């Protein structure tokens, strides 16, 4: 019961902040409300007892990615910060809203009509232990992920170097 109340609060926060995030015309406000959405999603992970995942979400997304966005907005978007805002065309919003409603109805109908999700068991009310997460992350056996772990570290390094090369000033 307490879980359900927590879920409802988190759902209201996530959906409300997401709607404000995509409809506001000021980019800085959009970034701030994206931060609320990210915190709400981290709360959902805590609710699912994935504590490590929630901590990763907060530290990587809410701590890192949002900082990148705020810096980019400060660098790029001087006019928007000074009060001039982005225009939004009404016809495009209407068409986008129509497409969104149709797609959302289709997806929710398909998700709720299928049968396999109704045989879910009772979720064990314990946290996933950190020891098993760590062993699965750097083990090399079956259902263990050392290759993906190494690959993603190399991938992050390549992306950081690539973005430095892209964003550097050309010397004339």
């Amino acid at each position, binding site marked *: 019961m307490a879980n359900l109340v927590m879920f409802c609060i988190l759902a209201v926060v996530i959906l409300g902040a997401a709607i404000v995030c*995509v409809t506001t015309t000021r980019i800085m406000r959009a970034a701030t409300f994206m931060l609320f959405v990210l915190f709400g999603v981290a709360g959902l992970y805590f609710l699912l007892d994935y504590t490590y995942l929630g901590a990763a979400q907060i530290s990587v997304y809410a701590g890192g990615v949002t900082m990148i966005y705020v810096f980019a907005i400060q660098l790029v978007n001087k006019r928007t910060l000074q009060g001039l805002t982005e225009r939004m065309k009404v016809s495009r919003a209407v068409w986008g809203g129509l497409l969104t409603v149709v797609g959302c109805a289709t*997806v929710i109908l398909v998700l709720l009509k299928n049968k396999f999700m109704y045989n879910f068991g009772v979720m064990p009310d314990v946290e996933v232990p950190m020891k098993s997460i760590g062993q699965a992350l750097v083990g090399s056996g079956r259902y263990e992920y050392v290759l993906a772990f190494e690959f993603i570290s190399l991938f992050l390094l390549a992306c950081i170097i690539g*973005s430095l090369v892209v964003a550097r000033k050309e010397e004339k």
Partner: protein
Amino acid sequence: MVPVQCYFVLSALLFFIGVFGFITRRNLIAMLISVELILNAVDINFAAFNRLLFPDSMEGMFMTLFSIGVSAAESAVAIAIIINVYRNFKSDSVDSIKNMKW
């Protein structure tokens, strides 16, 4: 305990809010923020599937973990490209990029 349908409905709604933002906004950074919303919706789905339907395994959790890492890299590269576009075109709207050459 929360029924599994609630998670799916929530993530579908969040996904399509992101799609709406991606269609209607014309600012590059706002479009990127919408993409982040879409990615978060999918991550919720992975974690909820794993925890509520297959609680003994951890595949969905690791998928979410790697997805968080990949999206951090993706947003870094995209921000670098946006800064470069602003430097060259003096605008951060997608309409300003008429062609991809210098």
